């Protein structure tokens, strides 16, 4: 066996230093991502409550209690409404902006910058600006967007926004969230549209296809991966975002989501086990969209 062992040693010498160089990062990520995720799941099966950790085993009790918990049920429903409105709205708006810019317009760089700049601003600052715009005062104290609508003669658009008693209050938060992120969707679609080879479109045109058909049969299939990326990114943002809601109106249960409930139940009254349970459910919710997505994109990359 001396032969194989020397070959093994040679191979080790070839890739060993590389492995050594990345090992600090791999160990840190192993602990801080996978170790902590596992630890958190473990906490979700305990009765830990209060500042001293308790590592007993209560089975799935926290989960069944959570599903019966009225606030959590409201939160899940809120999250569902928010996700649909936010993703749908940002996709539509982002796609529209990309289509408007695609053919090249004058001042394109200006428009692109304007649509994209909210991405650079923190959700806390975004929330502080928008909490004033979403003011629901009426009569002489009308302010914010309502006042603006009033000024330009669109008074019928008046709304109580996130303070409305309707269960759609949470949908109002899709407005600042969409303001922040639809420019990003625009950028993704614009890159996707411009990546379609001009020759392909030209070939279809030569065959006598009208523009509508060129789009549907040539461009649309090539936009599918972009659409998928956009949906996945928006979906994971919508599930984990905390600060935007927190800074707009933190006491308002109508805009409460599991991410906020986790925060408020864990670090103030010290219901660590319940917080960990909510967090575990969030993790599985996000993993359900992210894991297939990563699997798919790594596979397509390998095929290239």
């Amino acid at each position, binding site marked *: 066996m001396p032969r194989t062992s020397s070959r093994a040693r040679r191979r080790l010498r070839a890739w060993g230093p590389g492995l050594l160089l*990345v090992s600090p990062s791999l160990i840190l990520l192993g602990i801080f991502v996978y170790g902590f995720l596992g630890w*958190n799941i473990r906490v979700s099966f305990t009765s830990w409550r209060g500042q001293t950790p308790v590592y007993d085993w209560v089975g799935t009790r926290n989960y069944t209690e959570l599903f019966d918990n009225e606030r959590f049920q409201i939160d899940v429903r809120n999250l569902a409404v928010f996700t649909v409105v936010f993703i749908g709205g940002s996709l539509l708006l982002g796609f529209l902006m990309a289509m408007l810019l695609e053919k090249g317009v004058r001042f394109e760089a200006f428009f692109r910058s304007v649509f994209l700049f909210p991405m650079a601003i923190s959700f806390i600052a975004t929330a502080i600006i*928008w909490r004033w715009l979403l003011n629901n005062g009426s009569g002489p104290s009308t302010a914010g967007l309502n006042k603006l609508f009033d000024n330009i003669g669109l008074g019928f658009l008046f709304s109580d926004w996130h303070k409305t008693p309707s269960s759609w209050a949470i949908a109002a938060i899709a407005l600042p969230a969409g303001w922040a992120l639809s420019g990003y969707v625009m950028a993704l679609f614009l890159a996707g549209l411009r990546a379609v080879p001009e020759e392909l479109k030209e070939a279809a045109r030569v065959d006598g296809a009208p523009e509508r058909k060129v789009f549907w049969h040539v461009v649309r299939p090539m936009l599918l*991966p972009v659409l998928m990326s956009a949906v996945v990114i928006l979906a994971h943002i919508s599930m984990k975002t905390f600060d935007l809601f*927190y800074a707009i109106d933190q006491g308002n249960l109508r805009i409460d989501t599991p991410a906020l409930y986790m925060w408020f139940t864990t670090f103030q009254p010290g219901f660590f086990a319940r917080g960990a349970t909510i967090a575990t459910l969030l*993790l599985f919710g996000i993993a359900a969209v992210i894991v297939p997505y990563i699997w798919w994109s790594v596979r397509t990359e390998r095929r290239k």
Partner: protein
Amino acid sequence: MRTLAKTTRYLALFLLACFFLMPVYALLVTALKDPASVSVVRMWELPASFSMENFRIVWPDLREGFVNSLLLAVPASLISAMLGAANGFVLSKWRFPGADFVFPLILFGMFIPYQAILIPMYRTMQSANLVGGLDGLIIVHVIYGLPITTLIFRSYFTGLSDEVIEAAKVDGAGMLRTFFFVALPIAPPAFAVALIWQFTSAWNDFLFGVLLTSREFWPITVALNNIAGGQTVPFNQAMASALLASVPTLLVYILLGRFFMRGLMAGALKG
């Protein structure tokens, strides 16, 4: 027909631009008004005279947070960019068995909901005595920034031709020499992207900051939320604070927009 379509397009773009700029207008107009003449009801009206008074009032309260965020974001982005460069290089050009398996595992770290690591992370930082100051927060930003910086550099180095690496190997250069003398010198664009991305996310982070720092080490977002988040805070001061707290990332966006864009695209994988 043609001009009609064109006019509609420009009109639509103009209206959309108005929608995106409307909060900026409200922000500027309010922040620049004389504190005495501010009222929520008249928030859309232009100021009678420009005044910097609001900024002068809020700045003393924000300054500390502003400095803390700089002390946090600069080292956090430098360190995670450096580590990301090493990871990206190895994962694309000096692969070890299992590299294809490790990469998706690293990538997943980019998308996890931070709620799901918050309790263990807090406990660990507490027992390591890293809660309260900025060092714990820097460590956390470095670690959770690794997936994206690794991705950025991996994509970048994948574009580098294998022959260059092979030539270095033939000349007897080891992995470290190749990394430092062949890969790093051509990587400034990737560094720009990684640094901007990391700077922006450290600057804009709230969750880690509010959990891990005590009052004197609050990063700007936490300070901003505590100063301007309350219902009782004067509206003009809230707006002026939000504007001041956004200046650095806006500057990065305006001055280095191209790299900012590429960072965004990297976040979308192959988008």
